[in-house]
């Protein structure tokens, strides 16, 4: 029996869905799910109590639409192409698909989106992916390698992420766990978490808290004020702490309140799978 008491307080404060063991027994008809499915569902759960969410394409978008369908029907989805309040009927391939505009409360220009809506701190949560995240929550989506001018891998670049990371009240990062993706220091700070040490954020006077949690296919890391870095707060069912430690490029601190992520419920899995199936057949 997994002790979930430790996370309950955190869940309520941070907007996680808490599934009690009774609900688990009742709801869970599946015994199997993929790592990616649980990562996506965990990210959706993080949106249960937020008002508005600035969404990136890919898994962040899938998670946000899933949250809107079953956990938080009033969730205001905001895409950087200018759509506010979209209710997409399928997962958009790009952030500017027509489906986002069709269902939006309002479609504003890109300068208006960044200047009037994001910059003043009107948006609760940013949901971001990245190629790398480090122990201080800095994100890299620019280059892999030491040489900016001749990188090993040229990534797409910043897009809207740096200002999402600095202007939203908080940021949830979704990224698959590996040593390459979790280096001690990112090769390039595209979006700042807490800089090269924890002092930077306060000094720079950002409105928001920056990355407060990192949801992976193995577990969940949370930014710890006490330790001044990301620590392991939850492991997904069937994953060991050892596995996560090996997939992390620094000595990962384990929360004394470490919990196991609640298993996905049948409705969560059904909703996610239907959404993906519907999106791929159109």
């Amino acid at each position: 029996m997994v002790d979930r008491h430790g996370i309950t307080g955190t869940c309520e404060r941070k907007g996680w869905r808490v599934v009690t063991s009774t609900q688990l027994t009742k709801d869970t008809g599946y015994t199997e799910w993929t790592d990616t499915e649980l990562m996506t569902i965990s990210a959706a759960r993080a949106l249960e109590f937020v008002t508005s969410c600035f969404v990136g394409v890919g898994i962040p978008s899938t998670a946000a639409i899933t949250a809107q369908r079953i956990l938080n029907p009033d969730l205001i989805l905001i895409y950087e192409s200018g759509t506010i309040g979209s209710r997409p009927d399928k997962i958009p391939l790009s952030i500017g698909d027509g489906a986002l505009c069709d269902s939006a409360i309002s479609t504003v220009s890109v300068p208006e989106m960044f200047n009037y809506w994001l910059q003043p701190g009107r948006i609760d949560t940013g949901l971001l992916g990245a190629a790398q995240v480090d122990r201080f929550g800095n994100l890299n989506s620019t280059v892999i390698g030491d040489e900016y001018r001749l990188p090993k891998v040229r990534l797409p670049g910043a897009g809207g992420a740096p200002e999402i990371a600095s202007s939203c009240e908080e940021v949830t990062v979704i990224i698959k766990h590996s040593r390459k993706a979790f280096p001690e220091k990112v090769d390039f700070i595209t979006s700042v978490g807490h800089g090269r040490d924890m002092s930077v954020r306060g000094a720079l006077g950002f409105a928001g808290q920056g990355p407060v949690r990192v949801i992976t296919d193995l577990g969940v890391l949370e930014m710890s004020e006490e330790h001044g870095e990301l620590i392991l707060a939850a492991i997904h069912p069937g994953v060991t702490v050892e596995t996560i430690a090996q997939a992390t490029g620094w000595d990962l601190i384990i929360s004394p309140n470490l919990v196991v992520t609640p298993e996905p419920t049948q409705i969560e899995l059904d909703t996610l799978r239907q959404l993906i199936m519907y999106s791929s057949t159109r």
Partner: protein
Amino acid sequence: MVNKSAAVDFMTLEEAIATHVQDGNSVALEGFTHAIPFSAGKEIIRQGRKDLELIRMTPDLIYDMLIGAGCARRLVFSWGGNPGAGSLYRFRDAVENEWPVPLELEEHTHAVMANRYVAGASGIPFAVLRAYRGTDLPEYTENTKIIMCPFTGEELLAVAALKPDVTIIHAQQADRKGNIHLWGILGAQREALLCARTAIVTVEEIVDEIELKPGGVVIPSLAIDVVCVVPGGAHPSYAYGYYDRDNSEYLDWINHSQDREAFEQWLIDTELREPVNAKAGE
């Protein structure tokens, strides 16, 4: 110099590019996922332009084509990926291996690019926003400087106005006087158009009278130099109300762009470049 003439030239796309886009020009082909002026980009390749400074928030497939075809010496951008599908391989080959020619990068965030367009459209030397603090971006880019707010003392980022020689956008309609009707996702198209020395718009069709759509804007002919009627001119992106985004073509782009030979063959197959033996007169 701001164009103050109400007269708009209606011409073919071939004439427009031949007349207004010269080797070495700075050129912005704008359109945020929606209404990307693909036909204009392909015509620039077909006419063999060289040494262009390409400006665009999201290079997308359109600049992958131009970069791979060797039209560009410099790229000013904020996110260089194939939305939802992965890398832009011609862009990466140019940055990582300097093929077919070295590509100088000036990269920013969406918010900064949007504000640089706003400054250009406003006819002032710079715009100001909260950006780049704590990131590695300022060290590797140009045209941004930290300034102190004269009222509050806050450190802010001044970003230089963009002033392209030519901006090309795609819109749904023009009337016979050259007023432009654009609706759906607006991106930064108006700002990009208004900061250019020469403003060219490709449209789906000419209408006798504009009937304003919900969320639509009319860009008065005062700001427009050239209109070209190019039905389907945004494909494989989309023209809201006319045709959908061709997602399969976006996903298929990897097959034409991942290696150099496939890309060269694509240029020939799409008649953007003559086969070598044809040039030799065989």
